[in-house]
């Protein structure tokens, strides 16, 4: 049992933090957010060079390391408030292929992903389905040797810049049945696909994706036919864990900014950080971040565990991060006073991202209910 980073992990962390210090300024962020894709392809190439795009993927296809390293990078990206599709493409897309892909699919896609030549996106959610992964109305009907896909997918993260979409569709069963779901790899430019791209409140990008009679071959199936839910759950658990680590980085950055602010901001003749009520609140923010970090890395360590254990760990981490993130985000803004409410300070941008992380793939209440259901005893 060893709950500290290895030497390699520490080196990775240091290099990631170094890059984030350079790239994580509000000015750089504004440029990226305003760009056509909503992110910086040059920076993406840097990620590839650093090997980050290969993290957590199978070694046979150019991958290295695992979920703990992904967490290390995501925590740093949280600090840097990055907007690149790392979660969407490498974690969600990459894990879908790594865990569900055939040897051929892996050989085709993973090296390209790791080298930064390929972008993936996960099209799982649907309007009206809320956070239930089994709520799949999109259909995949047999059509010759392949399938014909029809339906709509909601809030596909970085869906417009993706080359291939991982689409959850129903090959059998009724609307919320746990069986009958299949994942498909669909070229984003396939006939019948339309994508409506938009920005999200936290400066990221997403798209509504409509599939109208999209034909794919049988080799587009990722994992087993009708058995896609288990794969999807695992992929999303990896995503939740990565998001938890990102949230930890944001909390740490917000705490630093808030401490710096209350140590220098003077009111009533002294730094407001000398007021005990604010001190105690700053302590609670610190504790919230520490507990979240412990949970994010615990979950990362559990990503290889059997499904029930993995699911509980991911849910627990999301709950912890949701609660802590709410506290830290709201308090950071409050303690910054008026400045925290403006677009001009990075604090507000951190707060928005932290808030949206709680929404992604299920909020605190959702994962608390999920954890409670899976709880032993």
């Amino acid at each position, binding site marked *: 049992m060893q709950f500290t980073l290895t030497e390699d992990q520490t080196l990775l962390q240091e290099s990631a933090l170094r890059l984030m210090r350079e790239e994580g300024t509000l000015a750089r962020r504004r440029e990226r957010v305003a760009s056509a894709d909503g992110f910086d392809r040059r920076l993406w190439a840097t990620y590839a060079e650093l090997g980050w795009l290969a993290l957590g993927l199978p070694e046979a296809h150019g991958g290295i390391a695992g979920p703990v390293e992904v967490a290390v990078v995501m925590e740093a990206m949280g600090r840097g408030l990055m907007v690149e599709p790392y979660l969407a493409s490498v974690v969600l897309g990459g894990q879908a292929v790594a865990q569900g892909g055939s040897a051929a699919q892996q050989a085709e896609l993973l090296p390209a992903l790791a080298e930064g030549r390929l972008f993936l996106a996960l099209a799982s*959610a649907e*309007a*009206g*389905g*809320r*956070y*239930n992964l089994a*709520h799949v109305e999109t259909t995949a009907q047999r059509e010759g040797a392949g399938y014909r896909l029809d339906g709509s997918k*909601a*809030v596909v993260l970085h869906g417009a810049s993706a080359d291939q979409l991982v689409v959850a569709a129903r090959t059998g069963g009724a*609307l*919320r049945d746990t069986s009958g779901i299949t994942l498909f790899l669909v070229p984003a430019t396939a006939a019948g696909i339309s994508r*409506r791209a*938009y*920005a*999200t*409140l*936290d400066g990221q990008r*997403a798209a*509504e994706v409509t599939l109208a009679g999209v034909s794919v071959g049988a080799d587009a199936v990722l994992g087993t036919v009708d058995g896609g839910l288990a794969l999807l759950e695992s992929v999303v658990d990896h995503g939740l864990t990565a998001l938890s680590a990102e949230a930890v980085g944001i909390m740490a950055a917000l705490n630093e900014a808030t401490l710096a602010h209350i140590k220098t901001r*003077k*009111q*009533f003749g002294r730094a*407001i950080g000398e007021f005990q*009520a*604010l001190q105690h609140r700053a302590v609670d923010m610190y504790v919230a971040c520490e507990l979240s970090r412990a949970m994010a890395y615990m979950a990362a360590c559990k990503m290889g565990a059997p499904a029930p254990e993995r699911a509980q760990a991911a849910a627990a981490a999301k709950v912890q991060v949701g609660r802590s993130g709410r506290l830290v985000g*709201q308090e950071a*803004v*409050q303690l910054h*006073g*008026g400045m*925290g*409410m*403006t*677009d*001009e300070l990075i604090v*507000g941008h951190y*707060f*928005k991202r932290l*808030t*949206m992380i709680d*929404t*992604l793939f299920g*909020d605190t*209440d959702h994962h608390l*209910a999920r954890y409670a259901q899976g709880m032993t005893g």
Partner: protein
Amino acid sequence: MDLDLSDAERAFQAELRAFVREHLPAATRRKVLGGLTLEKADYVGWQQILHRRGWFPFNWPTEHGGPGWDPIQRFLFEEEMEMGGAPRLAPFGIRMVGPVIMEFGTPEQKARHLPAIVGSDVWWCQGYSEPGAGSDLAALQTRAVRQGDHYVVTGQKTWTTFAHYADWMFCLVRTDPAAKKQEGISFLLIDMKSPGITVRPIIALEGSHEINDVFLDDVLVPVGNRIAEENQGWTCAKFLLGHERIGIARVAFSKQQLARLKSIALREQKDGAPLLADPRFRARIAEVEIELLALEHAVLRILSEEKAGRPAGAEASFLKMRGTEIQQALTELQMKAVGWYGLPFVPEAMHAGWNEEPIGPDYAAPLAAAYFLTRRATIYGGSNEIQRNIIAKAVLGL
């Protein structure tokens, strides 16, 4: 003790309700109930309609052109306005500078400024906060130096809501830098068209423009625009602060937001049933509804005392604290209710004129932005930390 409305109160309520239903412009109502961006004309137009009925400024005594209502009537008025989808009445003229002028103004000042507020001829803004003077308002640095019949005013005000709409600003300035903090301050009325004033927009967290920096560079203000004696401005400031602290609880606004939350949760689906039927989400709504019920009855207790001639003191600060916390809880639940569709951010969708198909349900677009916007409620108007300090000192004797 009796919670039922009297017959007269019930008739009054019906009259208010009917009036809003009949006279509130439909376009304005749509914007308010849909959470969309309002224009200056929406506010002013509605004020003028109310004025023609004799109900604006609703909180003023008859001698100055108000209806002369008692606290319970004012409470009922605000409730009907909110529930009917009327825009919030900007407080700067009718709740802030107006009462200060009534209390401290000269006959000339009253004659000049009060009718202009009544007639909605001017829009006021509040020049209080400065970059170095937020919670510690008395630390303000904006200087006013007497030169003959004028003050020359130089400094910076910030977080000035609707300064870009404003014709006039009431302003705290330092007239005696040698005096103790609170003692060297004066209260000036400044024409926003005066040379030397620059308004710079501050874009809020969620992208909206309501607040501004106001830079004052050798602005000439006639001495006749000073309210009360020189260096007595803090008295005006305290009077204003104590005034209408109860109104900031915004019970009626929160009731309207609660109704909106339920309507959203009824339309959102969870596992094939309305989200409103989900026991956990329903319990979350119930929690806030109970908090709001408690606040409402705390307000009614204080208003009843006021009506009986015992106006509240600093203890009313807690109404502002709880009121703003409840506003935040409600916007947070609205955002939570729409799940994934809290993410999309299409600024154009916040404007009534936008005609494209919405992303997700049409009610979803403004919700996350409203959550972020509402975070300011516990910061502005005397942060909740300051309210706690006030109660600790003035009520608990700590």
